[in-house]
């Protein structure tokens, strides 16, 4: 797993760096992206009402879902009205977040993932480990064997990537042409025009968005953009940050329904599911600016070592470490804010300048303040060390104890340091002891030796 993830993230990271370096005004674009998102969040109720009005005007139907259950019920009811036994899905994090596939299965409707990587995970009864490349933890050999045991049973697909992918293509093509209902997420929704946008690489999303009779889009409320012209900024930021491409292969934009062209029924479900709670946190709310590019995952030294499953969330990596605890409630994911060495690589690459390290620190402080016992061993050690640092006398005593191999400074630092790293011998003389032992300098100081 570590080899698969490490290799893949190295490749995407290098490609992103090259594509970003080509853009002379990249920093200005990042500022613009951050500013547009901040404006959208500051006027969210207004923007969502504008969006609802525009979508309705264009012939779509808008639904509001407070949480996962409400959202699943809405989608399930629409699928039920059309007697669908199957729905095809465009890759979508929002629908993964609410567990739509399981909810539909419970009412006898099979959700079919059409994104190649999502399909691989679905066939392997696996879950996503990356926002953009959900099967990043899998290599070619694993995928070949998986297909030969599922959609290409009994066939020898060989080792060519195109031949292996062809098996999925044949399987999916049949579904695109026969299934009457599709679901999708949304990368953007323009309040001004009611236009929804999905960007993707494979074209399978485009199939889902155009061929079925009914289209249901589930969208987190933070995806709204005030104006059409805002797309200009994000359609530059997203592909370069995500896949390291100048432009993504497929950008699908649609506005309501149009007679004789594409789906004849369009539903937009606006999903809250904890987002308004996030908005209430002045520091943490910037997590809602995320455009799901994954640049922070690909640049994160922690993510590339542990992979996405370790974060136990649809949203892994640095952004997941600040988003998941806020969406679910800090008490449900209290360790995630510590899943970082605070190296800052995520902030450096974020296309909308989310200051992930600062939010991590903010959430750490909130967890300690709101949920941790003041009597936990860590809290007591921190309190003791804090008292030591609070006075010169206690500090100097602790230094002497440290030299004897015990005392609060050492005990706080020791556990877990373990196998691979030795601790330095505590030197015979602290710096301050040396300083005091120096012969007095000539008056006026300077170059005295």
């Amino acid at each position: 797993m570590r080899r698969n993830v490490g290799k893949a993230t190295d490749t995407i990271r290098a490609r992103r760096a090259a594509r970003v370096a080509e853009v002379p005004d990249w920093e200005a674009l990042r500022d613009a992206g951050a500013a547009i998102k901040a404006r959208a969040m500051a006027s969210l109720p207004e923007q969502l009402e504008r969006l609802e009005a525009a979508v309705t005007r264009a012939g779509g139907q808008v639904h509001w879902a407070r949480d996962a259950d409400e959202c699943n019920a809405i989608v399930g009811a629409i699928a039920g009205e059309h007697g669908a036994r199957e729905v095809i899905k465009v890759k979508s994090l929002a629908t993964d977040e609410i567990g739509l596939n399981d909810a539909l299965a419970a009412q006898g409707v099979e959700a079919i993932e059409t994104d190649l990587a999502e399909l691989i995970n679905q066939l392997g009864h696996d879950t996503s480990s990356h926002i953009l490349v959900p099967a990043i933890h899998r290599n070619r050999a694993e995928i070949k064997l998986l297909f030969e045991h599922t959609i290409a049973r009994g066939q020898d697909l060989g080792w060519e990537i195109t031949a292996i992918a062809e098996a999925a293509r044949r399987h999916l093509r049949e579904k695109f042409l026969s299934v009457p209902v599709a679901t999708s997420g949304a990368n953007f929704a323009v309040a001004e025009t009611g236009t929804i946008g999905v960007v993707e690489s494979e074209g399978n999303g485009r199939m889902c968005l155009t061929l079925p009779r009914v289209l249901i889009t589930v969208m987190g409320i933070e995806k709204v953009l005030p104006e059409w012209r805002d797309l200009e900024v994000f359609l530059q930021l997203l592909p370069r940050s995500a896949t390291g491409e100048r432009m993504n292969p497929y950008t699908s934009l649609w506005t309501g329904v149009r007679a004789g062209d594409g789906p004849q029924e369009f539903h937009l479900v606006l999903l809250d599911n904890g987002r308004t709670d996030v908005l209430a946190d002045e520091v943490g709310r910037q997590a809602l600016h995320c455009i799901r590019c994954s640049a922070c995952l690909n640049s994160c030294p922690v993510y590339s070592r542990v992979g996405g499953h370790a974060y136990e969330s649809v949203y892994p990596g640095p952004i997941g470490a600040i988003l998941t605890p806020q969406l679910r409630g800090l008490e449900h994911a209290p360790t995630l804010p510590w899943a970082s060495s605070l190296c800052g690589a995520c902030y450096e690459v974020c296309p909308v300048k989310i200051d992930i390290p600062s939010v991590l620190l903010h959430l750490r402080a909130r967890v300690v303040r709101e949920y941790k016992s003041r009597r936990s061993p860590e809290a007591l050690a921190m309190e003791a060390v804090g008292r030591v640092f609070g006075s010169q006398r206690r500090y100097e005593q602790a230094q002497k104890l440290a030299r004897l191999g015990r005392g609060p400074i050492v005990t706080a630092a020791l556990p877990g340091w373990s196998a691979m790293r030795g601790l330095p011998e505590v030197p015979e003389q602290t710096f301050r002891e040396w300083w005091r032992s120096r012969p007095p300098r000539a008056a006026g100081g300077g170059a005295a030796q």
Partner: protein
Amino acid sequence: MRVALFITCFNDTLFPQTGRAVVTLLERLGCEVDFPEAQTCCGQMHTNTGYRERGLALARRFEQVFADAEVVVSPSASCVAYLRENGAGLDGRLTELTEFLVDRLGVEDVGATFPHKVTLHPTCHSVRLMGIGDRPQRLLKQVRGIDLVELNDAAVCCGFGGTFAVKNADTSMAMLSDKLRDVLNSGAEVCTAADNSCLLHIGGALRHQRAGVRVMHVAEILAAT
């Protein structure tokens, strides 16, 4: 110029040789060094571990101890970055060592000699939090006899991250093992940095492996003659 030295608790206790080197270096360059003995810790460990009130109280304590200093110099990019981020940068009077040398004193050649093969770990907080740029490289390049060699994936974190190294020890060690591979592949005899916290981590593993590669703070190389 009269400068106050903020040695940091970590260097004071575990790396006194770095402090001695800073004093030697600054005095050689004509500075008069003060060491306010009331100083302890900046509070970064507390804040980064989630104990923010305590951490910020220590940052305020730092401000009081150094309130009268004309210029404060510290050999820890990480502590300086933390203090600045939390409003304890003393209105620009708090500087990191390499920043002080290059920007305030305007020197890059400090008159050092160090005839060894050296590689520089730039450290995350030096580069990304503090924006130290290439100041350590510029200073090291002027050292007589030095053979400064490239470190592959230099800007990637070594996995220390303060209490991260003990809270997520396995992940931290996975990151460290990649850093070690790059340090060993560089062929350097000495791995240096403008921050001893990373060097505690990298050096601890090098010693554990009996790799024969030493770690030294940039100040110790710049003080060598």
